[in-house]
């Protein structure tokens, strides 16, 4: 009589679908997938960022009858924030809106990787993609205004956190708000408010106290401050608070994302 040996199933190499190893492996797969998709529009993103960032930096200069060195310094060091804000708060929600319309999310969510990996991959990808345009916009602005910057290593975590925050909040907002039209309206209103009423390219002393209080809670002024601290010396005070504000907004973006992504439908 034969024993059970012949009936033994061939052992398949089944890897556990959990644990840090699996998560990191999935992340690298997902990043490759997202990068492949991004090839179509990545160059366009850089171009739009240069146009928006550098374009607005030049534009602000036209409003001043005489550009003093102080004004030029503020405008130049505000440029990286100007380049990051449209990417995070307009382009990311725009992409999400398009994916919602196309139903792409359902496809991506059906892939055998944790959803937290999918979100992380998106955040990392956009954060990386936002950097070249930001740097180039700064180069254009410093060239236009003839500014010498004192670049310190602080700029690396500063810009990184700003980019991550902008992408996270933009993504979370676009996911959490059902109607893409509403998201679009909020994004456009935000840009308008930010460009006029946030002290990014001018000192906060120009603002009335109540408006400055509002700007210290919103992320835009903090973005400008954190980046400015890496480009100048002695201009920025209260840097710790700005970092905290940015971290809080990043967390808020992640919570919004987690809430939507974690729901079952």
């Amino acid at each position: 009589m034969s024993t059970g040996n012949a009936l033994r199933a061939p052992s398949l190499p089944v890897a556990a679908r959990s644990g840090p190893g699996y998560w990191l492996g999935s992340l690298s797969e997902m990043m490759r997938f997202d990068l492949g998709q991004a090839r179509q529009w990545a160059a366009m993103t850089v171009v739009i960022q240069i146009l928006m960032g550098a374009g607005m930096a030049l534009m602000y200069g036209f409003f001043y009858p005489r550009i003093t060195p102080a004004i030029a310094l503020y405008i130049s060091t505000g440029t990286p924030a100007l380049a990051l804000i449209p990417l995070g708060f307009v382009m990311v929600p725009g992409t999400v809106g398009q994916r919602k319309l196309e139903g792409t999310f359902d496809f991506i969510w059906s892939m055998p990787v944790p959803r937290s990996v999918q979100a992380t991959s998106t955040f990392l990808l956009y954060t990386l993609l936002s950097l070249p345009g930001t740097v180039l916009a700064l180069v254009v602005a410093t060239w236009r205004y003839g500014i010498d910057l004192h670049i310190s290593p602080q700029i690396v975590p500063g810009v990184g956190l700003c980019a991550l925050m902008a992408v996270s909040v933009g993504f979370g907002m676009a996911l959490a708000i059902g109607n893409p039209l509403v998201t679009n309206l909020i994004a456009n209103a935000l840009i308008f408010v930010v460009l006029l009423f946030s002290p990014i390219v001018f000192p906060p002393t120009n603002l009335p106290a109540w408006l400055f209080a509002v700007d210290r809670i919103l992320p835009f002024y903090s973005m400008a401050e954190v980046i400015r601290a890496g480009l100048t010396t002695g201009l920025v005070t209260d840097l710790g608070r700005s970092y905290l504000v940015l971290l809080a907004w990043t967390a808020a973006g992640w919570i919004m994302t987690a809430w939507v992504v974690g729901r079952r439908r």
Partner: protein
Amino acid sequence: MTELTWARVTPRAGLPYWLHSYRILVRWHLAGLRLWLTLLASIQILAGAGFVLGIALFFRHIPAIAALFVATGVPVINLVMVGLILGPQLVADQKLQQSYDFIRALPALQTAAACAWYTVCLLAGIPAVVISLVIAEARYGISFAVSPAILPAVLLTAFTGTMIGYALGHAVPNPMATRLTTQLLIFAIFGYTPILFPARQLPGWLATVDWWLPFGHMAVIVRAGLTDGLVTGVATSYAIVAVWGAIGIAVSAWALGRRG
């Protein structure tokens, strides 16, 4: 024997028919856009007020001349916003939604249709103009020297803006291209044309480019109707704005006259 009954056929020409078309189309636009126009009028008022107030934040103490230029420039933006920016986008949307051919097939005269659209754009812009001016007066203590010249200036500015937008919407075949162009136009109008600030604050080459474009000249003629002795060369500016209006009409006529 059957009796032929004659339908009463009104001729599709002549002034009464034109006026009839015009009236119907104004009502058509107002009804079709009622939601949009209300929303847009509110946004226009907020944006106008926002710009008038926000510009002061760029300065520690805003120079009087800068305040005056912004206060007299924002009305120009209010006037052209619907015709130049929203108009082409609406036509682009119609092309995307395939309702464009239907609207083209309506038995209305093209000139009546254009005039009706101009009327709607003008109506949508005027409230924001008035409110921007009132806010500027209150915030910066500017007293405008309003002269009768404001009337032709407002009418011509809105007309040229609307006609350029009309040409853009109808002549550019690709809706995405239309959309992109209008977005670039918004950007240019706010920051790269001497509407909100004097032309001497621009680099020389950009000021030269702007001299050939209508936008800075729109600001000159509107400013001439609101202030005393601030602007010169008003006749030239009228001529350039009018020429651009004529170009807009010509391109629109060419685009709408094509078959197919």
